[in-house]
């Protein structure tokens, strides 16, 4: 019975909420139990954004977590603030394009993803979140890549359809 408790943090505009929702959505498509909980209210002031996604084979009691199996940090203050949330043995995904600080914990696996740079190379720095999502999925297999691809196609449709190709590439660029 696998339960992934993913915490994603960064600043507003980095697409934190979007990738969180995408994971939950993909989980749902696979028939898994999922919850997604964004930070809300005045705590968002100052431009931070974070969210919790749980994907599980069993009913989920509480969408608020005290420990994450996996932390994704997209900017430096988030790493400093949330490093301690990861359970021992868990994973931390670090956006090294913006984070110079080192992870201090030694009981976790650190994945350095230069997502900002990669996205820039692909032609749009704003796709950094999708690069990071790709890395996450490949490492942890929370959901299948196909599910995420399906969701991606849904997200980038209509008026955003022209961004689909770029993001598809962003999703698949990261190699372990």
């Amino acid at each position, binding site marked *: 019975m696998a339960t992934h408790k993913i915490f994603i943090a960064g600043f507003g505009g980095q697409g934190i909420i979007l990738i969180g929702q995408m994971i939950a959505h993909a989980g749902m498509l696979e028939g898994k139990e999922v919850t997604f909980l964004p930070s809300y209210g*005045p705590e968002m*002031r*100052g*431009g931070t954004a974070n969210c919790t996604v749980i994907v599980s084979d069993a009913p989920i009691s509480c969408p608020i977590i005290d420990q994450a199996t996996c932390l994704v940090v997209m900017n430096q203050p988030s790493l400093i603030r949330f490093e301690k949330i990861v359970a021992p043995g868990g994973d931390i995904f670090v956006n090294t394009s913006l984070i110079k600080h080192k992870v201090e914990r030694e009981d976790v696996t650190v994945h350095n993803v230069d997502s900002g740079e990669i996205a820039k190379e692909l032609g749009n720095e704003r796709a950094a979140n999708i690069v990071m999502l790709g890395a996450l999925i490949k490492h942890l297999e929370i959901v299948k890549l196909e599910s995420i691809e399906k969701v991606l196609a849904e997200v980038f449709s209509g008026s955003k359809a022209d961004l689909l190709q770029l993001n598809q590439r962003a999703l698949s660029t990261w190699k372990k």
Partner: protein
Amino acid sequence: MKKIFEYTKGMLPVSTHYCPGCTHGIAHRLVMEVLEERGLLGESIGVAPIGCSILSHNYMNVDMCESAHGRAPAVASGIRRAMPDKIVFTYQGDGDLASIGAGEIVHAAHRGEKFTTIFVNNAIYGMTGGQMAPTTLIGQKSTTGIEGRKKEISGMPLRVAEMLATIDGAVFVERVALNTPANIRKAKKAIDKAFAVQEKRLGFSFVEVLSTCPTNWGLNPVESLKWLGKNMIPYYPLGNLRSPEEVE
């Protein structure tokens, strides 16, 4: 070395929770500068509203309280009646003052309560995330009006200063803006006069301060200043609407 400008002692030496470029910070400073210059910091009691400035008591170096949403003028009336020798003021946003608290502000003016209200009009509900306020401009987008405010559904934006100026007890009413250094200087003068009116116990004094909310306007701080100048000032004209002779 001679001082040209130093941060007022009326403001406590802490960072605020306001978003970058939010002009709440300027409004705070102006009120505190005036109270400092008048030697009133130790004599003042402030009333914070519900809104982004609910935490203004963390920054303003005067005795302060929070108040229930919209009720700051009632709270200030109570303080004023209890403490006839103190300086009392409310600091309120447009959701707080112009919407849920419209009755209370009208009646503070009606009774001619001898306190000062600083009304920070940013044409939006800031703290709750950008819903339409009574002061939201026609066409201005909000989270409860994504296509922009429409007159047919929501009416025309409420001009609070003009409304209060019809009430006898509101002896000082002025509208100012925080979009340029020149306007900020004028704003300070108006706030200063409002407190002068209160020190003389002439009646209720009111300064409407046009302010920005970059976060919920969806603009950066610099664009926000421009938007304020271009869109708000034409609908909310600056200037004094009422002033007693004694402070002219």
